[in-house]
C-alpha cells in the first residue's frame, strides 16, 4: 500500500498537468468554501444591491455611483467577482452532492446486484441499460416536470437546487453500479466469503469491507469524471430554465444571463463566469483523465 502511495505521489509530482489542475481545483473549491469571507458583497442579498451599479465594466468606475468592481457588475448591479464565488459554491455543491448521490446509489445497487444475483441482478442491470439511454437533461426535464406538479409554487425556488442534484445524481449512477457489481461478482467467489458464511458472519458485511477498498480506485476515477459532467449538466439545465434561480445564481445561471450581453459589448458578464466554469470543468476533467491513466494498472 505504501508503495502504491509513494508511486502515486511520485507520478503526481512528475506530471505538470496533474499538479496544475489539482491546484486549480483546490483553489476553486477553497474559494467556494470561503466565499462569504472572500467576496466583497453577498450577491444573494438582493436588498444590498444597487441597481444603478448595473453594467459596470471591470476596474472602471460606474458612471452614476462612481463605484469600482474588480470584474465589473452584471445587469442587476451585482459584483461579478462575488457572484462568481457564490455561483461556484452553488455549482460545486450541486456537483458534489449529485456525485455523492450517484455514487451512493451506484455502489448500493451494484453491491446488491452482484451479491444477490438472479432476478435482482437482472432487474437492476436492465434498469441501468434503460437509464443509460436517457441522457441527463431529459431525466432532469422529467423530474422538473414532476416536481412542478407536486411541489407548492412557494417552495419551488428553494427546491430548484434539490431538483438539479436529484436529476443529475439519478442519471449518473450506472457507471458506479457496473463497476461495483463487477468487483462484487469476483469477490463473491473468494474463499473468505465462504469462510465468513461458515463462521456465521454476515457475508455481505464482510464483503463490503473487502470490496470497498477494491473499488476505491475506479470509483474515484468515475466520481471525478462525473463531477465535471454534473457541473456542465447544471449549466445546461440552467439554460433550459430548469436550473438555479437568478436571485441565487450558479455559474450556469450566470452564463445564461451573460450570453444575453455577448453582442452588446458587456463581454465581462459572460466571459468571467464562462472562464471560471471552463477552468473548473477542464481541471476536473484533466485530473480525472490523469487519475484514470495513473491508477488504472492496465494502462501503466
Amino acid at each position, binding site marked *: 500500500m505504501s508503495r502504491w502511495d509513494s508511486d502515486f505521489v511520485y507520478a503526481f509530482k512528475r506530471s505538470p498537468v496533474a499538479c496544475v489542475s489539482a491546484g486549480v481545483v483546490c483553489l476553486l473549491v477553497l474559494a467556494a468554501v470561503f466565499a462569504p469571507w472572500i467576496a466583497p458583497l453577498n450577491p444573494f442579498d438582493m436588498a444590498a444591491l444597487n441597481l444603478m451599479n448595473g453594467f459596470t465594466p471591470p476596474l472602471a468606475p460606474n458612471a452614476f455611483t462612481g463605484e469600482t468592481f474588480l470584474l465589473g457588475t452584471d445587469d442587476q448591479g451585482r459584483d461579478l467577482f462575488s457572484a462568481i464565488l457564490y455561483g461556484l459554491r452553488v455549482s460545486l455543491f450541486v456537483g458534489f452532492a449529485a456525485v455523492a448521490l450517484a455514487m451512493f446509489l451506484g455502489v448500493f445497487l451494484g453491491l446488491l446486484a452482484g451479491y444477490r444475483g438472479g432476478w435482482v441482478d437482472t432487474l437492476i442491470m436492465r434498469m441501468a441499460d434503460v437509464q443509460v*439511454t436517457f*441522457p441527463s437533461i*431529459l431525466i432532469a426535464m422529467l423530474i422538473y416536470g414532476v416536481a412542478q406538479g407536486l411541489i407548492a409554487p412557494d417552495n419551488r425556488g428553494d427546491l430548484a437546487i434539490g431538483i438539479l442534484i436529484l436529476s443529475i445524481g439519478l442519471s449518473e449512477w450506472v457507471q458506479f453500479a457496473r463497476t461495483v457489481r463487477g468487483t462484487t461478482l469476483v469477490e463473491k467467489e473468494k474463499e473468505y466469503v465462504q469462510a465468513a458464511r461458515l463462521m456465521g458472519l454476515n457475508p455481505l458485511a464482510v464483503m463490503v469491507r473487502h470490496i470497498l477498498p477494491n473499488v476505491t480506485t475506479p470509483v474515484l476515477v468515475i466520481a471525478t469524471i462525473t463531477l465535471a459532467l454534473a457541473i*456542465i449538466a447544471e449549466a445546461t439545465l440552467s439554460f*433550459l430554465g430548469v436550473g438555479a434561480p437568478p436571485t441565487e445564481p450558479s455559474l450556469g445561471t450566470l*452564463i445564461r444571463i451573460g450570453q444575453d450581453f455577448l453582442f452588446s459589448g458587456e463581454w465581462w458578464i459572460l466571459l468571467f463566469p464562462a472562464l471560471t466554469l*471552463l477552468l473548473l*470543468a477542464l481541471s476536473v476533467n484533466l485530473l480525472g483523465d490523469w487519475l484514470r491513466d495513473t491508477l488504472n494498472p492496465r*494502462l501503466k
Partner: protein
Amino acid sequence: MIYTLFQRVIQACFVLLLVALVAFSMFRFVGDPVQGMLGQEATSADREALRERLGLTDPIVLQYARFVLNAVQGEFGVSYRTGESVADMISQRLPATLELALISGTFALLLGIGLGVFTAIRREGFVAQSIMATSLVGVSLPTFLIGVLLIWVFAVELSWLPSFGRSGVVDLGGWSTSLLTVDGWRSLILPAITLGLYQMTLIMRLVRAEMLEVLRQDYIKFARARGISTRRIHFKHALKNTLIPVITVAGLQIGSIIAFSIITETVFQWPGVGLMFINAVYFVDIPVMSAYLLLVGVVFVSINLAVDLLYLVIDPRLKANASEGHS
C-alpha cells in the same frame, strides 16, 4: 438467437409502456394548458368548459389508458398550441432533426474515430497530446454556449455561415431534406458542429482508450512477431477490435444527440422536434410533450435493439454464444 431477440423485444415493450406512463403522468401535472389557450378576455366559465371538452376532468387512469391506446394507433391528439395534429407535427419536423442528428453523428463518429486512432498510436506525440488537451475544452463548456459562440464568430463577425434556420430545403415526397443544396449544407454546418462536438470528444477519447487497450493485447504482439507491418496492425487488426465496444457507446450517443438537439435547435432555430418539444414545455402543450417523450423512447429502444443485433453480426464470439442459446 431468436430467443434473445424475443426477450429483447418484450423488454423494449415494457420499457416503452413505462416511458408512456411517465410521459403521460408527469406532463399531466405541469402547468395548466387551458390558461394558455384562451386569451386574456376568457372567463372562468370558459375555462371550465374547455377543461371539460379536453377530458382533463376524467380520472387519471382513464386518461392514461386513453393515451396509450391512442398512442399505439399513432394518434397523439392535437397540439394545444398550434391546433395541428401532433402526429403531423412530428412527421413534419422529424426529418430536420434526423438529418441534423445524422450529419452531426457522422461528423462525431468519423472525426472521433480518426482522432482517437491518431492520439492512440501517437500516444506520446506533441500533436496527440495537444488534441487530447483541447478536446477537453469541448466537454468543459456547455453546448448552448458553444453554439452562441459559433454564431458570434462565424455568422456575426465573419459572415461566413448563416446564424439560424434550415435553408435550401427540398421536398422529396413527404421527406424534406436540406442535404441536396449548397444552402442546406451551409445552414447545417454550425448546428451539426455544436451538436456533434461533445459526442466527437467522447468517441475520440473512448477510441483512444480502447485502442491503447487493444494494442497491449497478445494478438497484437503476435501479429508484430509475425512480421505484419505496423500500419496494417493498427488499421486492420487493432481498429476492428477497438470498434466493438465503441459501437455500444456510439449507439447510445445517438440517443444523446437527439436529446441534446433540444438545445442546439433552440440556439439555431432549427425547425426540428427538439424545438417543438421546448416550445411545448413552455406552452405546457401536453400532447406534444408526451408524444415527443414517447418518440425519444421508441428511438432509444430501437437503437438499443439495433446495437444488440449489430453486435451479433460483428462479433463472431457472440454469434456463437447466442446460437447456443445462452447469452
